[in-house]
């Protein structure tokens, strides 16, 4: 009886859907309920700050910029008279970003991260280009594992003398509203790692770091016209 068999197969399908009728929904009501994001989820790009000092971890080595497959990161950090980099501009275009996480992997200083935050839509596509302040603000409460090698230890050793000088300054800044302090710290930032660099105890550490990063200190990354030679490249690859 083919007809009866078909009929019961139809009924079987209906019992399956009917059974689901009484079950709980597996979806959630988004704006009210939010999913617990995984720790590794790659969302918005942020800049991380030092847990103690609150300054950017970024050393302006430009590795993230070079690792980015979509040219979403733009860094402008010319050198000052002491041949140290001064951060002028750090922009991430979230509209260009493909959230691949290569910048995070390229970074040796735990400075950039794809945080597990996802609510950053805007009305205007231009608002998706975040400057350093915004990147740092959003990144302040992002937990991360500090993988900076040696530096923290060296810093701790070199710190005390410096801390005092810094403390004074921050005490003076303390009275100012936070927004201004951000700006202030941004302005100060480049000078901060510089200070540690000059400390005698630290002399060797940066050199080692540079090697590991395989970006030499003499790089001038901005001049697009000058191609870097293939030979140079191989050397670095081998290093």
């Amino acid at each position, binding site marked *: 009886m083919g007809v009866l068999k078909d009929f019961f197969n139809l009924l079987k399908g209906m019992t399956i859907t009917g059974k689901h009728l009484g079950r709980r929904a597996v979806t959630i009501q988004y704006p009210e309920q939010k999913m617990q994001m995984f720790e590794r989820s790659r969302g918005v790009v942020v800049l991380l700050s030092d847990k103690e000092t609150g300054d950017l971890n970024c050393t302006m080595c430009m590795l993230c910029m070079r690792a980015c*497959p979509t*040219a979403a990161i733009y860094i402008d950090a010319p050198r000052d008279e002491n041949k140290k980099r001064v951060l002028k501009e750090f922009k991430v275009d979230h509209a260009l970003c493909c959230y691949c996480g290569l910048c995070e992997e390229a970074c040796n200083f735990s400075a950039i991260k794809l945080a597990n935050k996802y609510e950053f839509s805007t009305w205007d596509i231009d608002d998706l280009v975040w400057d350093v302040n915004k990147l740092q603000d959003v990144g302040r409460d992002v937990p991360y594992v500090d993988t900076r090698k040696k530096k923290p230890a060296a810093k701790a050793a070199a710190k005390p003398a410096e801390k005092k000088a810094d403390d004074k300054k921050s005490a003076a800044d303390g009275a100012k509203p936070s927004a201004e302090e951000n700006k202030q710290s941004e302005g100060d930032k480049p000078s901060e790692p510089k200070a540690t660099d000059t400390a005698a105890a630290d002399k060797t550490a940066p050199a080692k770091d540079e090697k590991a990063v395989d970006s030499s200190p003499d*790089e001038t*990354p901005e001049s*697009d016209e000058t*191609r*870097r030679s293939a030979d140079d490249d191989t050397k670095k690859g081998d290093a």
Partner: protein
Amino acid sequence: MTHDELRAYVADKFGDKLTLLDTGRAEPMYEVKLSDLHDVAESLRKDETLQFDYLCNLGGTDTGERLEVHYQLASIYKNNRIDFKVMLTDDKPSVPTVQDIWPAANWYEREMWELYGINVEGHNNLTRFLLPDDWDQGHPMRKDWDAPDFIRLPEFKG
């Protein structure tokens, strides 16, 4: 048939029509002369021992110096793989179609014609394919192709 046996068989069967390229890998890669292309392809397909009945991939390449067309073949029943390619040095590059041997080549050849400007003789339908119908800006996969809105990644100095 192992790769070595395949090499030996092909050398025996085709002689200098198929030149083995040194790629350093197990799977053999051959170079074929443009004039022999269709014949070689047909005998690869028809040969009882080889039976390359399955066209994996076909496409053009611009190495910067010359254009190449590569063919990746497989045999379903004999379970072999073979690659061969043809170098095009002509100003007006052109290859014979292999559509009659592997119907699958149809779209691949159309794509190649469109993106590399390699003419395919005997193809039944060389019309715009991936690009817009009114495309008139040349063959974009060529290395020297450039267009005002084509953005390359910024070059970094070492």
